[in-house]
């Protein structure tokens, strides 16, 4: 085999005591696309950054050699090495918003790289910038050049990032979770672009991701990382056929799959929640006296009904209003119009107090388990809070019992009752949130992207837990998500939301297998399929 482009031998990175990357070796060959896969905290990003020496000073890097084209980078003094960054190795970061300088026009930010590494006349530089923008397929590049990052959409920003990375004509392009922050459809486009560019320029692509499905479409070779160690390296075809290492298998097994929806059978049942022409509008103020000139129609005339013990998945991309809808149903956001019947009662008619109690039968599980719990409170108090508020009559002892019971239900040790949120992992926290929701024995739980912040393996567990609970206590879920795979796993019915309106609704298998509406179709197309050939 040819001499590798990048050769990493026995690389370890440690902060103070704890070692995050532990003596890993891997090679990347010219022109190939190499994927480093692992769950969050496995140290994959650290590896990339350490290669580029972008870690903060308190990081301690050790390695036998990190060689680019056989040239050992470790012995190069900083002053020379910074000429390599961007020139020979390009880097794309996860979050395009924060990775771009907010007060510089994107043109300037790209030009900077060129000016840094090539000696060109200003006119040529501008020319080059244009080329790059065209290369990353940004419409109307002349205009965009003059704009600031905040004026661009997420997808465009990521394209700009790519342009910046490409500006130095690097031999190796490192893409660190390049699409995680993007919507499915955009994600697909960006990935396609990356692929294309790689073929054009023939540079090597080092992809860092947690998403096996995505990787399966992109990578030639795959390395799986667990807790700072590379457990398996293999050509992707071989890998997906049959992974050797148990961890790899676990990962694969955990992957959600749309096709599970095929197993679902629709058993009719009584409607629990009925929403009719539901609206949430935000006024836009203008002028001297702040007149309302127009509205942002976050949720615009949505109607659907959810049946007892069933799961309705609200699918849509970010900003389509699905989360707003959820919060509005909980009255966390004032609704502008429409009516809501909750098991037979018109919530609109209830007095505030009655409403408060009734609403408690609808609970919510939030996206970010870290923000969803008051870090200053004990788990026991967090879970018991709802009880205290709604049923002050029950005694402290009973409450304690209830809490322990709930913990048991969500498969957490009783000991966790007297601990604080920060002591738990993401998955455990999500369980606690579920327990909190269950505490007031609701009929309906609104799950707002409950798993999108979690790793695949954990995600699977949570989904299973939710399903079990549904079995046990005939809960209904309003499941808000952008991830169709997850929908396939859990939903009985699916409603696709686009720009505040439901464009398609129906039984899961029907919507997912035979989508009617073009938008749904594009969505489904965009979902990265696990390629097993």
């Amino acid at each position, binding site marked *: 085999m040819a001499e590798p482009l990048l050769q990493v031998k026995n690389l370890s990175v440690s902060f103070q005591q704890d070692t995050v990357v532990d003596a890993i070796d891997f090679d990347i060959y010219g022109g190939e696309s190499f994927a480093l896969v692992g769950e969050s905290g496995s140290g994959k990003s650290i590896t990339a950054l350490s290669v580029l020496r972008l870690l903060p000073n308190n990081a301690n890097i050790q390695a036998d050699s990190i060689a680019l084209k056989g040239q050992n980078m470790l012995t190069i003094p900083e002053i020379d090495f910074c000429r390599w960054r*961007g020139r020979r190795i390009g880097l794309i*970061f996860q979050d395009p918003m*924060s*990775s*771009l*300088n*907010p*007060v510089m026009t994107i043109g300037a930010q790209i030009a*900077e790289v060129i000016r840094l590494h090539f000696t060109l006349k200003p006119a040529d530089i501008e020319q080059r910038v244009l080329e790059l923008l065209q290369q990353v397929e940004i419409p109307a590049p002349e205009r965009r050049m003059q704009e600031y990052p905040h004026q661009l959409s997420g997808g465009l920003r990521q394209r700009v990032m790519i342009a910046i990375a490409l500006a130095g004509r690097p031999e190796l392009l490192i893409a660190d979770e390049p699409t995680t922050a993007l919507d499915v459809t955009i994600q697909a486009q960006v990935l396609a672009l990356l692929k294309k560019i790689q073929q054009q320029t023939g540079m090597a692509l080092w992809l860092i991701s947690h998403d096996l499905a995505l990787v399966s479409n992109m990578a030639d070779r795959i390395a799986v990382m667990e807790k700072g160690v590379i457990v398996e390296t293999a050509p992707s075809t071989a890998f997906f056929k049959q992974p050797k290492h148990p961890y790899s298998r676990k990962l694969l097994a955990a992957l959600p799959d749309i096709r599970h929806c095929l197993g679902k059978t629709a058993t009719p049942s009584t409607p629990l929640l009925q929403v009719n022409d539901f609206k949430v509008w935000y006024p836009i103020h203008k002028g*001297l006296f702040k007149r309302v000139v127009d509205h942002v129609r976050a949720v615009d005339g949505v109607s659907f009904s959810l049946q007892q013990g069933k799961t309705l998945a609200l699918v849509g991309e970010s900003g389509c209003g699905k989360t707003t809808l959820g919060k509005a149903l909980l009255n966390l956001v004032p609704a502008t119009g429409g009516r809501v019947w909750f098991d037979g009662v018109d919530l609109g008619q209830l007095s505030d107090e009655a409403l408060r109690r009734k609403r408690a039968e609808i609970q919510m599980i939030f996206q970010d388990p870290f923000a969803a719990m008051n870090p200053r409170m004990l788990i026991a108090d967090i879970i018991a809070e709802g009880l205290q508020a709604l049923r002050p009559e029950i005694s402290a002892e009973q409450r304690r019992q209830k809490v322990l019971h709930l913990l048991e239900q969500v498969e957490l040790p009783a000991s966790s009752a007297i601990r604080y949120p920060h002591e738990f992992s993401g998955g455990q926290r999500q369980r606690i949130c579920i327990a909190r929701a269950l505490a007031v024995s609701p009929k309906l739980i609104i799950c707002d992207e409950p798993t999108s912040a979690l790793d695949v393996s954990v995600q699977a567990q949570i989904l299973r837990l939710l399903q079990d609970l549904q079995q046990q206590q005939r809960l209904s879920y309003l499941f808000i998500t952008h991830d169709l795979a997850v929908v396939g796993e859990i939903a009985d019915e699916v409603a696709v939301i686009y720009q505040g309106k439901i464009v398609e609704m129906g039984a899961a298998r029907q919507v997912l297998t035979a989508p009617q509406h073009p938008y749904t179709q594009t969505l489904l197309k965009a979902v990265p399929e696990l390629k097993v050939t």
Partner: protein
Amino acid sequence: MIQYIIRRVAYAIPLLLAVNILTFILFFVVNSPDDMARMQLGQKHVTEQAINNWKHQHGYDLPLLWNAEKSGLEKLRQTIFYQKSIGLFLFDFGISDSGRNIGHDISERMWPSLALALPSLIVGLLVNITVALMMVLFRNSYLEFGTIVLCVILMSISSLFYIIGGQFVFGKLLKLVPISGYDSGLSAIKFLLLPIIISVISGLGSGARWYRTLFLEEVEKDYVRTARAKGLSEVQVLFRHVLRNAMIPILTGVVVVLPLLFMGSLIMESFFSIPGLGSYTIDAINRQDFAIVRSMVFLGSVLYILGLLMTDISYTLVDPRVRLS
């Protein structure tokens, strides 16, 4: 934009009214018009007649806030408060209780104050930023630690020590600058040199630390990592990206105080006997010259509000993300 400004100005009016009432009450709880008259008329041979004359001449012979005798609007109009306040809103500060035209005095004393405050601000800003940048450049090194300690030490010394020490050393021992005083035009330089240096040094400690934290916050950000990934050297990163973003809070922070510079610095001016508005205010307090005190308070609040407005505007200028509405 224009509408925004208009709204803000409209908002300022009740504010100023409140300020005015507050000062008014505070002052007249303390002393009655008679006291003021005595204060101004001096000590020897003061007769009731003279006092009443004085009160009549300076318009302090009306009731304070509410005139029961009069009818209708006059109840409000024929009061000291109304008579004295209305002028302020037209920026006509009237005659001080000791018989000088306040507006004229202010317009004269404004310039020395500015001549002291503005250079101190600018020089201070430059010095602070340089030091802060240096600290950030050498972060987590003994150098940074040393500088921080130095800053803390500088912070822990009362400004009075700086002034007294400075006057003693540079004025008295080394005879490099006049001990105090002021002169118009360029000849002011030699008088201002010492005060400026002192105010810069006394502000250095806290200033540099504050800016350092600002810079550090920026350095943590992702786009800085991007900039490094582009291949910029540490210094380039600091100057092209970090400084530029950190300047936003710094600049706007400066803009707030800009208008207030006119008010001058109380301590400095009275120590170096610089005839600015600061010493003007102090004198007024000591002489209990209500007319002046009130005018200065009013001026101060106006400038403060102006400062807030300017801050918002300057945000839109330096930060493309911000829009006024």
